[in-house]
């Protein structure tokens, strides 16, 4: 599997560390109810097919949101998490 880093170009999967679903990039408000935090941290759509998830590109330090397919391992593209204004 090769993954495109928006800063460095397409690189080997070994240069990346997987974090998880893009749900992690959508933090609830600090005073949101416990249910919202449980959903954020634990519950997942876990799709079989197109997904967007977060990978860290170790050499350049960018958090990358990868558009890929969990059923085929095809990678369709990526963008920088930072450009969405969220960490």
């Amino acid at each position, binding site marked *: 599997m090769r993954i495109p880093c928006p800063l460095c170009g397409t690189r080997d999967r070994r240069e990346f560390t*997987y974090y998880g679903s893009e749900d992690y990039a959508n933090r609830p408000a600090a005073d949101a109810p416990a249910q919202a935090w449980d959903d954020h941290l*634990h519950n997942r759509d876990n799709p079989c097919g197109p997904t967007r998830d977060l990978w860290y590109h170790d050499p350049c330090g960018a958090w990358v949101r990868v558009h890929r397919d969990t059923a085929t391992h095809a990678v369709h593209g990526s963008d920088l998490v930072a450009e969405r204004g969220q960490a």
Partner: protein
Amino acid sequence: MRYSGLRVLTEGLFGNKGWKPAWRDPAPKAQYDAIIIGGGGHGLSTAYYLAKNHGLTNIAVLEKGYLGSGNIGRNTTIVRANYFLQGNSEFYSHSLKLWEGLESELNYNVMHSQRGLINLFHSDGQRDAFVRRGNAMINQGDDAILLDREGVRRHLPYLDFEQTRFPIYGGLLHPRGGTARHDAVAWGYARGADRRGVDLIQNCEVTGIDIENGRVTGVQTTRGAIRAKKVGMVVAGRSSQVAAMAGMRLPIESHVLQAFVTEGLKPVIDHVISFGMGHFYMSQSDKGGLVFGGDLDFYASYAARGNLPIIEHVMEAGMTLMPMIGRAKVLRSWGGIMDMSPDGSPIIDKTPIDGLFVDCGWNYGGFKAVPASGWCMAHLMATGESHPVARRFRLDRFATGHVIDEEGTGSQHNLH
């Protein structure tokens, strides 16, 4: 038909004409008392124990492919009860006891072989942790023996004791641990359930779960609608998709776990060996193949195949531990889809929908759990109460903080 040595002998004398199919192939009825979605190891054992322990025989197992076509049909077959935490400890202890009686229980040879499991350790700190684990296992009533370096050498003389990266300090021997023939477990439970009147319905994919006023009323399938007041979802590998039919989001992320088998060799490895520091474990099958694996690929996947970096990593770890296997030829590798839960432990519980139950989240350890998972899921579906040894496998434990984090790494999807 009861299987026995005498039966094999007489069938052999008369041309093997008397063997019959091990189970029927019934069409689905319009209504059952209970439906189990998923004809894998856990689903079939649930059906068996619903019939045997609770007298519920008007039940059906719905399987979208053929029985045992998922992870029960291909895995690394390890059976053990070497858990530390309450919740896991009593559950896997119960499961191992069921394994020990399984062949006479099912009248089926599941080739359960208690050849002993040795977990290696490589530092003083790891030894302390293994001493604690061994004590917990003994307190639970199971067996554990701490081996020093020379003790490991007596059992496993072929390991590379001179390696500098992870020098072998010793190992924890679990004599009752071992392996079994994975698919035979599915066939044994299927035959046992069928003999008690359970309908095993194959090529029947569930496409919807019917819910009225917060109660489950049945399922929609590719072979028509089937009504039932109790439905169990036992579909590890596809849990999120099936639960979504009931409007639920589960604390599950699916990952691919690869495993490998070599060509058949003469007997060389007597035990199950795990090398945790290198993410590697191995045993030898009765056919002679070395069966081994390592860690997850570590990204969400349903592809049932992995990528090369993990294959390379597993091979490196194997060569570090036992260089003698370097000349063995790898015959095949495969990837199974694991239901990964945030804390690495399973879920056997009710859902917010009345009559709908879930058994999922088996991570990379579902095989050894097959008997107790079915036992406890059957208890839950029949009585509405969690079985005492599975009462901590709650669906809501991530919200309440009662997690069962055996690895001690945390309760988040990217940690197990």
